[in-house]
């Protein structure tokens, strides 16, 4: 295997859910990430909470069966260590002396309280980079506020934009608050690494989930800043005042399809009509007045429609009627075809169709299959090979790779303490007896 980009970097991973995607990104690029979990002896609250989140392998709800944990901890080694005990702290300090990065997600100030904050760690290791990922950052009036994923997407301005006006604002699926914070934390960590490469100096990286997500507001922030108008959730139709044929989500025979016809760069509605005619599903759209509207139908035409409201209300009514009929025929067309046919045949005609993929569609997507995107990872302890999601990026010289499956609790205790730190086997056994590891 080619050398990995981060093969010379060691990361101590204390991250909870809000930061664990960051350490996965570093690990799959080759960093030696040591995941540190509280030992079982520390009691129920000491369990790694990431192991409690589903989905689970064959729905077996056990800390060693979480697919969520598996995915977020690929390519890492794992040890158990109670950093709240003095003996555990001493081990952590020894690890820190030989590490480059610590990623932690405790409440601001906690690491300082237990003597392992940035100030203390930088004395042990001046090049140390400490990345702290929290809901609201290390400073400010809400620094001590409690967070979870939904609190992040709410306070970060994303949730207000999602959903139908008749429903509560929607929670984006899949812990997108944690994902966003994790991505920004990986970026911040590597940016600090650039500075260390230049100067040898470490530093403290502060990531707030709320800030990490703000730019996901799209134009909402700038819209209020410039015009004092508030963007809110607008449901399936989006910001369009009327149904526009070929824009939005439609039912296919076996699921849903998204269409955005008439955008610059793509084929015009006349191509859509040609497809309908080729398949015998155009009904009366080839006749006047519908074909006339189709010949003109583009973004500029739609913009001009608004002007007709005052200049020629009768023409506006006729046009809207024709558009409504186009919509009906288009709806019937979509309903008569499969989502994959609409997507692939439509795209071949340069009509902007996008399949509304289910997880099954993602797993069977011909493009992802051609590019061998899904990854098979061996789990000896399950006597099975599991199929994982693949790389977010492909680096030609230093490929992304899942180097090993996620660690079992304490799997690398001996490996790390004896082989890396040079501890005697009996000292490791003593720590185990004391419940430190």
């Amino acid at each position, binding site marked *: 295997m080619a050398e990995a*980009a981060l093969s010379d*970097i060691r990361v101590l991973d204390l991250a909870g859910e809000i930061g664990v995607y960051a350490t996965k990104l570093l690990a799959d690029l080759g960093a030696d990430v040591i995941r540190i979990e509280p030992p079982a002896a520390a009691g129920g609250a000491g369990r790694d909470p990431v192991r409690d*989140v*589903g989905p689970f392998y064959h729905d077996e709800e056990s800390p060693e069966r979480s697919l969520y944990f598996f995915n977020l901890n690929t390519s890492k080694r794992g040890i158990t260590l109670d950093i709240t005990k003095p003996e555990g702290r001493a081990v952590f300090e020894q690890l820190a002396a030989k590490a480059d990065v610590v990623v932690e997600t405790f409440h601001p100030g906690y690491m300082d309280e237990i003597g392992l904050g940035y100030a203390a760690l930088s004395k042990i290791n001046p090049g140390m980079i400490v990345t702290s990922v929290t809901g609201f950052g290390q400073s400010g*009036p809400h*620094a001590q506020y409690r967070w979870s994923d*939904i*609190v992040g997407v709410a306070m970060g301005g*994303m*949730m*207000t934009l999602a*959903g139908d006006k008749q429903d*509560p*604002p*929607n929670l984006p*699926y*899949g812990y*997108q608050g944690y994902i*966003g914070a994790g991505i*920004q934390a990986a*970026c*911040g960590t590597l*940016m*600090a690494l*650039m*500075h260390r490469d230049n100067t040898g100096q470490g*530093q*403290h*990286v502060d990531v707030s989930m709320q800030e*990490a*997500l703000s730019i996901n*507001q*799209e*134009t*909402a922030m*700038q819209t209020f*800043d410039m*015009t004092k*108008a508030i963007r809110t959730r607008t449901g*399936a139709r989006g910001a369009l005042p009327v149904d526009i044929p070929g824009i939005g*989500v439609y039912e296919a025979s076996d699921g*849903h399809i*998204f269409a*955005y016809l008439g955008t610059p760069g793509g084929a015009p509605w006349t191509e859509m009509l040609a497809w309908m005619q080729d398949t015998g599903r155009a009904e009366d759209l080839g006749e006047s007045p519908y074909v006339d509207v189709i010949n003109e139908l583009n973004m500029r035409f739609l913009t001009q429609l608004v002007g007709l409201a005052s200049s020629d209300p009768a023409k506006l009514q006729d046009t809207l009627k024709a558009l409504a009929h186009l919509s009906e025929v288009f709806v019937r067309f979509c309903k008569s075809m499969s989502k994959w046919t609409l997507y692939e045949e439509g*795209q071949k005609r340069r009509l*902007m169709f996008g399949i509304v993929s*289910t*997880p099954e569609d993602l*797993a069977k997507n011909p*493009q*992802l299959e*051609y590019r061998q995107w*899904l990854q098979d990872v061996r789990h000896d302890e399950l006597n099975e090979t599991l199929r994982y*999601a693949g*790389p*977010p*990026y*492909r*680096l030609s*010289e230093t490929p992304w790779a899942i180097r090993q499956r996620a660690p079992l609790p304490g799997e690398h205790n001996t490996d790390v303490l004896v082989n890396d730190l040079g501890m005697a086997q009996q000292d490791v056994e003593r720590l185990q007896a004391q419940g430190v590891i």
Partner: protein
Amino acid sequence: MSELDAKPTKGQPLSGIKVADFSWFGAGPICAESLATFGATVVRVESESHLDGLRAVGPFPPGKNTYNVSGYFNNYNAGKLDLTLNLSTERGKQMADKLIAWADIFITNFTPRIIERWGLLYEHLVELRPDIIAVYQPMQGYDGPHKYFMGFGAVLSPITGYNELCGFPNRPPMGVGTNYPDYVINPGHTLVAILAALHHRKKTGKGQRIELAQIESSVAPLAPAVMDYTVNGRIETRRGNHLPHAAPHGAFRCRDNEWNGQPEDRWCAIAVFDDAQWLAMVEAMGSPAWTKDERFGSHAGRKQHEDELDAKISEWTADRTAEDVMAVMQARGVPAGVVQNARDMLEDEHLKARGYYVYLDHPEAGVTAYDGPPFRLSKTPGVLRSPAPLLGQHNELVCKEILGMNDEEIAEALIEQALY
């Protein structure tokens, strides 16, 4: 702000790094902006012959609507120099080659079809600059049966599973209301890859080619749903605001606000994952009698009767402001947060105290708000050194100081519409 503000920096993580930013819309420009924020010299290449669509889309400041004042465009392009190059002209291509030879990093999210037409494939770039880090962000990838499929954020979001999985089950799959993967997922993943490649180059002197297929980058965060299918055969779909391991969990309707004479619905998100948080929440609500109901006494019970639980909580939140609900919950250690809109964000006392939003004085748009650096480095904080550039604002500066052209050559480039 003078033009010089966008010139080389000192002491920043990326001081001395040069970037040829041949991208447009969201995923490329946002990534390149982060490089500028942390010290790189970034030349954004545009052309009036294929204008960045965001320049034409608002919001615009009142009474203005030129290509230079779009809040959508400007928010992603602070700190950059701007060069207009028409790559359909021979001279434009030559100037692009010179700029690439100057650059440490090349980035583009144009489609493979356009990049092939312009001849900006990696094989050409390494001839100009052997250690270049060349970054491509195609929608689907540079090979495969869907290589030439079209798309942008609004279509990418359904293709990659977000629409099917987000929202309430009784509604059609409509996504999260934005071109979501464009803003953090794809630019952020790209930045991770670039910085890792820079680290590798520092060690070995070698550049490389990075390909971020936006479909792959966008599906990667949905890995658990993909694995639930590949491992368990389950086809997950949208299920609203609930989570399997939390209850209550959702957004609760609070007292309406009034804004511009219209009622405005207000919501507060609350999340309870264990008994301790539930007991704290009960106390925060003043321990109303219904909370003693034994059905709500355990996580399993709360989960089983979650709709009734939601209704009871909504009765309690209905006549309180969202801000009060958050404050009362947070005072007891219950994770809770107002569903903030853009006004709340810009007026958020916490974000203000941290100085998150940055106000920059743009020559045409005036003073407007920009998203600040998305992560904070204690010794080398990111800086938005200048507002977004005007279209072609730095043509002369870049031609002279980077491309080494004299006045005569610049004049020829103008006449041939290469600088356009």
